[in-house]
């Protein structure tokens, strides 16, 4: 990333400075991120129940991992989380791209709406979760009130096990579609207008402009955004914690809440670390896959 010719010689002072500038970051990340993660990795090969000093921490090799793959609650959390990620990201992408297109004008309306669209993004997930919980209450919630006005019967949004997870998906869509909209919007605005002019002269319809020009040219950004949201969907914690705590039953248990349960509720530090390691590896593989896809897409554009 440095853009000097190799022939420039840096003074000793400059070299020293380069390293000094980097030091604070290295120190902080080392202490607050690297060491804990490494200790997590180490712990995953141990059996360690924090509140049982009678059984001291001891190495058990891969036993935690073996238990993991047979653990039906883990598999349930994995299933829920995957469903959550796939459905919410898909819908968010479709809606996000659509809204981005609809806001791509330069007029006052578009700018006003863009401002509005920013709102859900900056709301703390905890606050959003509590707010929606208030509105989704079966008896006193305002959402059910509107539903009854339309003639339907009230729904138990967070209490019905077959619906609860879709409710959580809905809240996630509400909170993060704006994120996608803003990013795709920037990408659309970066496309030179001249491309459109020549296409329109040739009689292309709006839809053709969208599908043949905008979509392909924005695809690298879209793929990146999809990957970011997909991975973030697996890290969901705040909203689920505040809205359902993983219930009803285990219908909305997600991987992070499951890790929380095993690690901090049950104090099974070794086991929860193993789940975390599997999580990190899976996520890394997924992002690797996405990156390959995006690189191929970039190559095709050029």
């Amino acid at each position, binding site marked *: 990333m440095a853009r000097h010719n190799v022939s420039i010689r840096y003074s000793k002072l400059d*070299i020293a400075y380069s390293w000094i*500038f980097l030091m604070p970051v290295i120190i902080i990340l080392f202490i607050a991120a690297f060491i804990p993660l490494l200790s997590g990795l180490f712990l995953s090969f141990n059996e360690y129940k924090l509140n049982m000093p009678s059984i001291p921490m001891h190495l058990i090799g891969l036993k935690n991992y073996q238990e993991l793959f047979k653990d039906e609650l883990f598999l349930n959390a994995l299933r829920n989380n995957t469903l959550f990620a796939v459905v919410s990201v898909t819908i968010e992408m479709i809606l996000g791209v659509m809204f981005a297109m609809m806001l791509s004008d330069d007029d006052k309306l578009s700018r006003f709406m863009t401002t509005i669209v920013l709102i859900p993004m900056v709301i703390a997930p905890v606050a959003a979760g509590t707010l929606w919980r208030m509105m989704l209450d079966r008896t006193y919630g*305002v959402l059910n009130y509107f539903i009854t006005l339309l003639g339907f019967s009230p729904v138990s949004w967070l209490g019905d096990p077959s619906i609860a997870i879709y409710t959580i998906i809905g809240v996630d869509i509400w909170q993060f579609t704006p994120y996608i909209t803003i990013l795709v919007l920037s990408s659309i605005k970066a496309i030179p207008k001249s491309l459109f002019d020549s296409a329109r002269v040739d009689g292309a319809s709006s839809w053709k402009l969208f599908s043949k020009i905008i979509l392909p040219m924005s695809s690298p950004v879209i793929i990146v955004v999809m990957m*970011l949201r997909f991975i973030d969907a697996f890290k969901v914690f705040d909203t689920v914690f505040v809205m359902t705590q993983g219930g009803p039953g285990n219908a909305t248990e997600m991987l992070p809440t499951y890790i929380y349960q095993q690690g901090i509720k049950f104090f099974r530090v070794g086991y929860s670390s193993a789940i975390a390691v599997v999580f990190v590896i899976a996520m890394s593989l997924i992002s690797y896959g996405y990156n390959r896809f995006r690189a191929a897409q970039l190559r095709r554009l050029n």
Partner: protein
Amino acid sequence: MARSLKKENTSYLSNFLGTPIRVIFLIFLLISILFPLYWLITSAVKFEKDYFAQPPIIFPLKITGINFIELFTRYGALRPLINSLLIAGFTTLFSVIFGSLAAYSLVNGCLPKKIKVILSGWFLIQKMYPAIVVAVPVFYVFSKLRLLDNISSLIIMNTSFNLPLVIILLVGFYIEAPYELEEQGMLEGCNLFQRYFFITTPMVKAGLIAVGMLTFIASWNEFLFGVILSVNKAKPLTVTIAGFITDMGLRWGPMAAMGCLIIIPVLLLMWMMQRDFISGVSAGALKE
């Protein structure tokens, strides 16, 4: 983001699904975003017995400010508010300072290539795992350091979360800054620090503001470590609002008022600096 000087009519794009559909969707968008906000604010000013009114009161005629007052008199929200401000403020300060130093060094310094590879690899991994993964080791360490219930532990953790993004974004901004000024500085005998401080960093001011905003918002909204690392005195606002979901019930009044307290400052900040916010967020994805 450069804007064209003449305002072209690009509705051929925005109406790509037809005008009526666009109108419907935008109205839907407006309502779905603004109504919850409206509900939050009206809930915060309702009288307690009105929460359980059947049907729910959409236009409260009788309003009261007691929930906000009680936040501070009965629920002691002043302390968490100060905590949140300090945590977000210092996290932003440190992230921007340390992050810009590191990013500048990576772009214009003379670090070996390997470092950059290692760092970008590490940043990638840091994005992969949820914070919960390191919660127990972190709790243990801070407990031994006697830094529990101390906002400095939260500042350290929040800074560590935000640094990767800050550095990646700022690297992008530093690369865009014209290199000629750097070269000129080198010719005039300025060392790396002087060049950083006087020449290049002022040019990326927009980038600094953008990442500053992102960091402030992210650390203001942080929840998990707020719960784990605080006991009583160091609780941020996000933890306090979750505390209203007790076994004695959802205390809707203070919850809504606290929600307003959490959301409105961030909204104001964002509205004032919209452009920078958008450019920061976009740069994040575009520079991936």
